[in-house]
């Protein structure tokens, strides 16, 4: 008999995305540009993060019409965002046949205390993380894929770098621990003990971890790959640049060949102007999307 929605099937889907770029799109036309450029998947949403930031107010799941339009436009997988803890938004996206749900801090959280119990769904979930505690709590809840939170919609890579380095440094620390120390470490970082034991045993996270939140150039994408990302999400960085098709293609290439600096220099030449960036110190605490969940 066949089984759907198993860990292998849900995590395996993310394995197939490795080495690739997942792009935020708001309509069919953008989805086609992304597919044409070689994106491994698209994230269908109503507004890219920088526009969400500019608009303020409450950001919710996209209108299903947009999601459907994108699903009909491309043959690559389509992801969509649900608010943190919003059971119904997630179920609606699942019922539409979306391939992956991002339980995302880019949208205004629906629940400030609890995330979704993602184990109960057939559709797989990706969640953001800033450190190993957050990463393993999300895995414990059933996330099948992780991404750094970074700081979405800023075009500033600094937070994504911080989060990728932090998670990987903590994995290395854990791997070198004696088993006696793991329970206290689990208590200290608020991590599920069993998940930590598994990571210590295998030497790596049990799910794929992409970079997200601030990627604006081919060099940013390659930097995140070099820091150990399995792939890259680009939100505002493509369709807020002045030449989306060029940026999309160049970011895909830089992600594949992240150690080929001559190539990255070649594809970065004259591609146009990147999105405008934001300095972290100009963000008020309440505007930091990464601090919206724990």
């Amino acid at each position, binding site marked *: *008999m*066949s*089984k*759907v*929605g*198993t860990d*292998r*099937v849900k995590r*395996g*889907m993310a*394995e*197939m*995305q*490795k*080495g*690739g770029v997942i792009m935020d799109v708001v309509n069919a036309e953008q989805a086609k540009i992304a*597919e*044409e*450029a*070689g*994106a*491994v*998947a698209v994230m269908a949403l109503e507004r890219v993060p920088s526009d969400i930031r500019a608009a303020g107010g409450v950001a919710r799941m996209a209108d299903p019409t947009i999601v459907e339009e994108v699903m009909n436009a491309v*043959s*690559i*997988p389509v992801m969509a965002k649900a608010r943190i803890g919003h059971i119904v938004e997630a179920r609606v996206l*699942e019922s539409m*046949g*979306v*391939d*992956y749900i991002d339980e995302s801090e880019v949208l205004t959280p629906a629940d400030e205390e609890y995330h979704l119990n993602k184990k109960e769904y*057939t*559709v*797989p979930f990706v969640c953001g993380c800033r450190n190993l505690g957050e990463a393993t709590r999300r895995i414990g809840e059933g996330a099948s894929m992780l991404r750094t939170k970074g700081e979405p919609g800023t075009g500033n890579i600094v937070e994504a770098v911080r989060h990728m380095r932090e998670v990987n440094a903590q994995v290395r620390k854990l791997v070198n621990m004696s088993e006696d120390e793991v329970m206290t470490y689990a208590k200290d970082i608020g991590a599920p003990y069993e998940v930590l034991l598994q990571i210590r045993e295998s030497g790596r996270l049990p799910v794929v971890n992409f970079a997200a939140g601030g990627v604006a150039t081919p060099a940013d994408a390659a930097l995140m790959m070099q820091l150990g990302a399995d792939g890259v999400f680009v939100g505002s960085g493509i369709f807020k640049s002045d030449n989306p098709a060029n940026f999309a293609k160049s970011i*895909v*290439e830089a992600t*594949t*060949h992240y150690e080929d600096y001559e190539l990255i220099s070649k594809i970065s030449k004259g591609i146009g102007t990147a999105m405008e960036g934001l300095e972290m110190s100009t963000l008020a605490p309440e505007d930091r999307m990464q601090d919206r969940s724990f």
Partner: protein
Amino acid sequence: MVRIGVLGLQGAIQEHVRSIETTGAETVVIKRTDQLADIDGLVIPGGESTTMRRLIDKYDFFEALRHFGEQGYPIFGTCAGLILLAKEIEGQDQAHLELMDMTVERNAFGRQRESFEATLAIQGVADDFEAVFIRAPYITQVGSDVEILATYQDKIVAAQQGHYLCSAFHPELTDDDRLAAYFVDMVKNIKGIKQ
């Protein structure tokens, strides 16, 4: 000792490396066409076939891969790799490498929520193979030279045509390395004949 390449443009590359290495063969991740000269066989992994095709074109792999196959070197394509090998794709005017005489349908079992695991019998490999299908294709038609190795609900999900092998599922995602071992044996036999 045989040396097997895993096409390293995008997808589940490390999983195939791990799976092939458990059989004792040496592996190398192929990112440039000149690396094809140093291997005895090639795995085209799962991933996104449209993405891989873009990168294949971009880095001049198209003719190089076709030439590699036409010289008689074994190629094993899984999922997206199977799509790249097929001569025809349902609903598309153009296929990709066109090395195997078969027609495939993309995402034929449905979207991600329909993705599944099932136990399969694979001819010459195993009676109880745990197969993981992810937005998987299947083969709708095969030419007379193509041997069907496995079916699931009457759909063709694994096949062989001489030195070409393909599966719609992902053997690299489980610890069952018997299909990888079958491919490594194919590579060993052909290398033996070539020498």
